[in-house]
């Protein structure tokens, strides 16, 4: 479920900025780190930290685009490719220097332990993650589909030139999308940081999963990205139960490679052209 938040943020940033942000995975880790340190310094409980993490990472999301994506808009795609990868390395190394390479634990959202629900035992933290995830995804859905702001964000993503020509201040809405993307990444990091710890090297893994989710779900499709992430989650859980974690991940990568070869537009995308 947390991966769905990561993928959602990734696709929103993709649509708004028009480019893949390879640093998105590291924003997730950064979110976890902020949760760790904010928790240590202020002693606030988990749930209260989330809005703070969201704000900080929202700002970072905008900054990242300002630094590594928007100034390179007119250049060939390798430029943003390299710039965002460099940014990812910067964040990762910055975190390593700042908090050391040893993994830290983020404060939990719901306390540890488990709850009994009708005979089934569920961990409190995983349950809380699912709940928060559902709430956030529903909130984003509501924002995009039912509010004027969301409509305008989607119009700008669809055709920013035309959006301006109907009077919509496109720049503002792009910033909003990027802030939202960052906030979602940060919250995901804070949520994952308790169970899976926070370590600077996790960024690449998150990035790869989000990238796969968006490609599987149809490039640029928001519901596709969420479903893609959930699909990855289910795939990993069930396949891992059968053949073990490592092989499940390997199977995932092989499946992705096959999919790209056979049906690159993913499950929900429109057919893409081939290169000349």
């Amino acid at each position: 479920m947390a991966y769905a938040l990561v993928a959602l943020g990734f696709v929103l940033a993709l649509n708004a900025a028009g480019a893949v942000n390879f640093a998105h995975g590291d924003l997730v880790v950064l979110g976890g780190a902020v949760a760790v340190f904010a928790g240590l310094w202020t002693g606030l409980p988990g749930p209260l930290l989330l809005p703070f993490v969201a704000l900080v990472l929202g700002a970072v999301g905008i900054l990242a685009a300002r630094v590594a994506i928007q100034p390179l808009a007119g250049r060939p795609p390798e430029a943003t490719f390299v710039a965002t990868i460099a940014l990812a390395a910067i964040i990762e190394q910055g975190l390593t220097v700042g908090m050391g390479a040893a993994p830290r634990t983020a404060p939990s959202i719901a306390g540890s332990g488990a709850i009994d629900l009708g005979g089934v035992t569920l961990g409190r933290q995983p349950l809380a993650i699912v709940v928060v995830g559902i709430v956030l995804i529903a909130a984003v859905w509501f924002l995009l589909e039912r509010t004027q702001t969301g409509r305008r964000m989607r119009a700008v993503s669809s055709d920013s030139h035309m959006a301006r020509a109907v009077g919509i201040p496109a720049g503002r809405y792009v910033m909003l999308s990027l802030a939202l993307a960052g906030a979602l990444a940060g919250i995901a990091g804070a949520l994952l940081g308790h169970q899976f710890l926070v370590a600077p090297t996790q960024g690449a893994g998150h990035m790869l999963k989000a990238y796969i989710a968006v490609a599987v779900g149809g490039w640029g499709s928001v519901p596709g990205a969420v479903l893609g992430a959930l699909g990855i989650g289910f795939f990993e859980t069930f396949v891992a139960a059968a053949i073990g974690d490592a092989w499940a991940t390997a199977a995932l990568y092989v499946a992705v490679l096959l999919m790209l070869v056979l049906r690159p537009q993913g499950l929900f995308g429109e057919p893409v052209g081939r290169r000349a």
Partner: protein
Amino acid sequence: MSVPVLQLGELSVAGGETVALLGGNGAGKTTLIETILGFRAGPVTLFGRDVSSLSVEARVRLGVGYVPERRRVFAGLTVRENLEAASFLPAADRRRRVEEMLGLFPMLGERPAARAWLLSGGQQQMLALARALMNRPRLLLLDEPTLGLAPVVVADLLGRLGAMAAAGTAILLAEQRAGLALGVAHRGIVLSRGRIVRVGSARELARDPALADLMAGA
């Protein structure tokens, strides 16, 4: 003699006037419209004030409606959402205005929840026009709106433009199909290779035997 709603060099359009902007492909019609909107730099006066330093969004909000070449509706949004996104009214007024629009454009009123990319060319053209009208613009800019449309739709479109001009809207209609445009316009301006090569009343131009040559780029 009223103050022109739009002034750009020799080009001017007054309220209630429809001016046809003619020229073949590459003659410069779209460039001119982009200059009026603000995508390109140029000395533009709108509604009596110099807007050269205003952004595109700001100019549009002064009261300009734009129907671009090839429609350019927001593909992933529904018909209703396309209209709503373009409106600057508060929520309740906005919804009322959308309903009004859907009523004025029965083609759209039939399927307000359809995603825009599913619509036919004619329906998209109507959507683009309705979207441009959401904020009751005083100046309407249209770039080749009849391209690829069935004659019935074209007639409907041109009829509406006539009604709007009668109600006081200033209209600049850029078209390759001179015959159509001159049929609804008061005046015409012919561009060739970025320069104005002919001006006159619509009737004069329509009867000019050299017009076909001018349009073909000779």
